[in-house]
């Protein structure tokens, strides 16, 4: 008889342990233990509708920080959401991996201020360094058209075009893949899609390069004090063997 009572008590305890309710009346949430070897049941906040998720309390992760595990009651009660949690150091490093080729930090430059809207003509030629150290400027334009300055923003105009065939014929490179600014001393800085090599028909097209435009020592910057007589010559380092010179002239206030 004593054994029967003991069995009855143990059964009640067992039911309470595995199928009991939380204090707020909700079901306990099943999750995997920190070492992944067994299931743990914890009470969390109650859900208000079928589509909301129950949030379990966080557990400590030795390396990073806490990890929240949640599960839904709408689909399959055993599907677990493992939140992704990174330490601040790791997070900063990871965020730096998601960059666009034209991303550029302009904070190290003194950007131009109070410049009225200007429209200019530009041409770009290639400068090749394989024969002489200072490079030899080729006698044909790799790109040409119009360039506009609004505040410190520098944008290429509707008539800007690359002459390198292949992908360069796509006008979106001058429109969408340019991130340039004008500095207060007349240099153009930033990053842009750049076609240094031409593609013949039948050749596999080449993706653009994304050189950084700097305040180059050899450049003659845009004279912001004498816009009507601008004759700028801006050097662009692209690759070891060749770069480019961008000539800007015929500027007018818009």
């Amino acid at each position, binding site marked *: 008889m004593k054994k029967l009572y003991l069995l009855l008590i143990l059964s009640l305890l067992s039911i309470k342990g595995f199928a009991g309710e939380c204090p707020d009346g909700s079901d306990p949430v099943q999750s995997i233990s*920190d070492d992944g070897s067994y299931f743990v049941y914890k009470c969390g906040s109650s859900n208000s509708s079928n589509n909301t998720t129950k949030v379990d309390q966080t557990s400590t992760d030795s*390396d990073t920080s806490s990890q929240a595990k949640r599960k839904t009651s*709408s689909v*399959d009660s055993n599907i677990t959401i493992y939140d992704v949690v*990174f330490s601040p150091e790791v997070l900063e490093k*990871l965020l730096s991996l998601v960059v666009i080729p034209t991303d550029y930090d302009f904070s190290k430059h003194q950007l131009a201020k109070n410049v009225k809207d200007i429209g200019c003509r530009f041409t770009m030629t290639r400068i090749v360094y394989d024969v002489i150290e200072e490079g030899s400027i080729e006698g044909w334009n790799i790109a040409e058209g119009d360039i506009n300055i609004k505040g410190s923003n520098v944008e290429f105009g509707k008539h800007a075009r690359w002459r390198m065939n292949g992908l360069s014929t796509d006008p979106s490179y001058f429109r969408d893949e340019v991130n340039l600014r004008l500095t207060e001393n007349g240099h153009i800085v930033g990053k842009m899609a750049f076609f240094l090599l031409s593609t013949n028909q039948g050749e*596999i097209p080449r993706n653009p390069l994304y050189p950084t435009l700097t305040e180059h020592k050899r450049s003659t910057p845009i004279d912001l004090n004498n816009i009507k007589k601008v004759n700028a010559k801006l050097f662009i380092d692209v690759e070891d063997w060749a770069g480019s010179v961008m000539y800007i002239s015929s500027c007018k206030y818009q």
Partner: protein
Amino acid sequence: MPKINLSRREFLKVSGASLFLAGLPLPGFTKVKPPGTISVIMLEGGMDGLTAVPPFGDPNLSKMRKGLTPDNYLKLNSFFGLHPSFQYFSGLMAKNNASIVHATNFPYTLRSHFEGQNLMQGGGLSPFSETSGWLGRSLELAKLPGRSLSLDMPLILRGTDRNDNFYPASIRSSGNLKTKLIDMISMFHSKESSQVFKKVSKKSTQKDSIVPRDPASLAKYAGKAMSQEGGPLSSVIKVSQFDTHSNQGSDEFGRHGKLLKLVDEIIAGYREGLGDAWDNSIILTLTEFGRTVKENGTWGTDHGYGSAGFLAGGAITKSRVISKWPGLAENEQFDKRDLMSTIDYRSVCAACIEKSLDLDHDLIASKVFFTPELPRVYDLIFS
């Protein structure tokens, strides 16, 4: 009958280019602004989800896969890691724009590439049961066109006559193609058939046939196209050779790791190309099956069942790993050899369709996947 006056060289130019022209773009324009875009990366050969997203919290992982798990995985939480090949994807996870579904796949357990690939594209109840694909049927339901970035029209996109396939190529002199032969052939066909030849003729003069052929550039091109007002809503890129029976490798320099790197670059390409359209985009991977839990005798793995699915895009606003983890112990494996699939990946596809095309889940479940009782996992991914 008009006299066809073409030189042999001109004829060869046209006929030789016809294969190429069949794959050139004819954009599928939409009439109504869609809520989002959906892009699929098909990982053919059976991607090893246990290497890509190692569940290091499972004590059996290190026992069974010593030579396959990278040492330098990124810890996502206290249970799952991420392969070092996924550099860009890890950045997206940090930005809360990427998630992973683990121990999942289409309900197919017979481990045949042909059958598995057919089922993951067809989305039917059994392999070769459908002549159209789940994405094509979805686009048809939404009355929206799509586009495939491959030479053939893959099964996954079949289902709507407004789809178009495209595989960029550049053949010498094809830009100067004379369309005389096409025009003449067109004259001898019915109105409907002649439309096809007109399409071919139009394609032959389009400039955007010039795109580098590597998958990342294709993804960027696809992203750019989808970002345009009235551009296509969907794209499919195929990566093969995941069938790593031998010398699979563990880290980013191994055979499998290099393929994962390619997937990472494709996702980066999409991100770059989509620009602001990224915010409403969803990209998901598919694979026909996972691989065996245990490493085989040739430092590889064999055909299995459950794998992992990668999701990225601005439509995701909270990064997470979603799983009903089955365990890796032998008695927890499918057929005592494979990672069990505990989440039907069709549910994941359905959630992505619901998000991007604004279709009702029940409609997707019954009309696209022919499974009215298909569980809805939308809230797990997008809430």
